[in-house]
């Protein structure tokens, strides 16, 4: 386990809990999807938890976050309360977006969580603009932009990296390289599969990190954030990970062998980190029980909150199509 950062036991357990919390939340979502409480697309993060948990702990409240449609992990790790998130999945008014966005479009102004984007690559230009705003307003915040390796194939990736680097803007580009874009394996989609190397074409300093190692991600994210804050311009962080479940809820996964998935499951970020904590005597059985109990309780409350939610009245359908004022 790489640990170029000094994390005390409390912090390490927080990382473990952060990942388990996402995993458990999504397991519940999958269940609720079968029960048809949640509809539309549901993109699970199973296997990728270390990325959001590792990166978010390096961010500050003044930083802005641009997410993807596979964003529950990003949202929870950023601190969006589980209950408003679950309510959003239910499509009720108590959801963080009043049930209008659903799983793919989580927004939380208070936490500067600027939205899940369902157009692959569509969030990258927004992050550049958020960073530009911070710079022009003399604020210290940066913009962290999450996207998959598939987004790297879109023209907006190219345009956004050039613009951020050219203007030396405070953007942290975080590529969640889970090796597949729906059924498209990276090596079948990109002539250069070493994604972090592409950053060089824009003179952006980059690092590739084992995205299944939460401590390694945390350490790399801290290094990158430090550099961005120091005014060195954008940084690029490629997190090498794996999607253990279907792309969305309907997906026969004919495009990859079951053995491959199984092999990766063994390298999963949670089992692996838990084993490491155990091996180093940092995880007491009581800790684990406590963490799991807390998470179960939180999920229970979130589901109850969502179940008690109310549909937004149809009369409000046109509200916010046009804004009456810019929220302060």
């Amino acid at each position: 386990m790489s640990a170029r950062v000094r994390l005390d036991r409390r912090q390490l357990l927080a990382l473990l809990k952060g990942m388990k919390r996402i995993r458990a939340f999504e397991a519940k979502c999958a269940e609720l999807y079968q029960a048809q409480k949640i509809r539309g697309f549901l993109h699970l993060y199973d296997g990728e938890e270390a990325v959001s948990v590792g990166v978010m702990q390096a961010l500050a409240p003044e930083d802005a976050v641009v997410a993807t449609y596979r964003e529950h992990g990003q949202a929870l790790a950023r601190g969006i309360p589980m209950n408003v998130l679950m309510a959003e999945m239910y499509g009720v008014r108590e959801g963080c977006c009043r049930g209008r966005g659903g799983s793919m479009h989580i927004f939380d102004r208070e936490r500067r969580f600027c939205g899940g984007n369902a157009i692959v690559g569509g969030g990258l230009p927004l992050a550049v603009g958020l960073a530009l705003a911070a710079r022009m307003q003399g604020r210290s915040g940066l913009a962290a932009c999450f996207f998959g390796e598939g987004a790297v194939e879109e023209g907006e990736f190219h345009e956004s990296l050039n613009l951020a680097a050219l203007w030396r803007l405070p953007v942290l580009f975080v590529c969640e390289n889970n090796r597949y874009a729906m059924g498209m394996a990276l090596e079948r989609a990109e002539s250069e599969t070493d994604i972090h190397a592409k950053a060089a074409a824009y003179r952006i300093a980059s690092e590739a990190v084992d995205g299944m190692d939460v401590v390694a991600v945390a350490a790399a994210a801290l290094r990158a954030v430090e550099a961005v804050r120091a005014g060195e311009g954008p940084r690029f962080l490629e997190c090498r990970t794996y999607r253990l479940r279907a792309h969305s809820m309907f997906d026969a996964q004919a495009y990859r062998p079951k053995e491959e998935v199984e092999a990766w499951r063994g390298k999963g970020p949670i089992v692996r980190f838990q084993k490491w904590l155990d091996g180093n005597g940092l995880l007491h059985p009581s800790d684990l029980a406590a963490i799991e109990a807390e998470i179960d309780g939180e999920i229970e409350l979130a589901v109850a909150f969502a179940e008690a939610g109310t549909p937004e009245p149809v009369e409000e359908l046109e509200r916010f199509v046009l804004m009456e004022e810019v929220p302060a």
Partner: protein
Amino acid sequence: MSGPQRLTYREACRQAMREAILDDPRVFLMGEDVARYGGCYAVTKGLAEELGEERVRDTPLSESAFVGAGIGAAMDGMRPIVEIMTVNFSLLALDQLVNNAATIPHMSGGQFAVPLVVRMATGAGRQLAAQHSHSLEGWYAHVPGLKIVAPATVEDARFMLKAALADPNPVLIFEHVMLYNMEGTIPDGTASVRLEGAKVRREGGDVSLVTYGGSLFKTLDAAEALAAENIAAEVIDLRSLRPLDMATVLASVAKTHRLVVVDEGWRSGSLSAEIAARVAEEAFFELDAPPARVCSREVPVPYAAHLEQACLPQPDAIAAAARALVRPS
């Protein structure tokens, strides 16, 4: 392949592509996840295994590049079928379609044709929210140089592709996402249909209901409901959105003297406006009542089911609009 067959719209699309690729070495299919994944709506399942990944090509997530590549290949002897997963993503390829596919034949003085077919899913109804629920076929129908069709029946899904591939011009085929699971019967695997021309899907003398694509069956449901009230609605399926077969629409209006246009696009500036305007221009004195439109609410389509459904044209709203024309209170 001969004799009547019962199949889904999805299966009809698949059979049409399979047949086209087998029949003509110049035809190939390319798009995101059309091969190994089998298509985002499972339309192309099995095609790559049978026909090979040279003829059924998975592309990177690069809408502009692979649509433009389809145009280039079409300019030089191929007959590409390019699949854009959904109309929502086609915005990223719009420059290629509008500035290249639609202009090159005319701009080159007829030296180059662009015999390209682009298929894409369109429409709402699956709770996919604002970025995944657009109905923008009306936009494309504005562009000279393009042909736009919207198969609304299993038969058209099965046979329009062949007609599109036989056309020397770029043809965009819009498949409504809610139709893929619909079942229907085709006369025979060797039948054919015209690419252009509207079809009267139900005859009636009291009011003309003009629609296309995913709204056809909602409109037929409305006509059924109206029949119970002794209102005979004629239902016209435009089939082709560019060019428009106004003759069929005008003939119907000449009979019914009343028009309701049903279009899932946002009302303002939708294709329904063109139909209503043309009828008002060309059959003004035939109309006994103002033309009416039933369209989507002018809102980014929300995720919540009840809000999404409130956005879309529904049979009862269609029936109400027709009723109001036939029996003004």
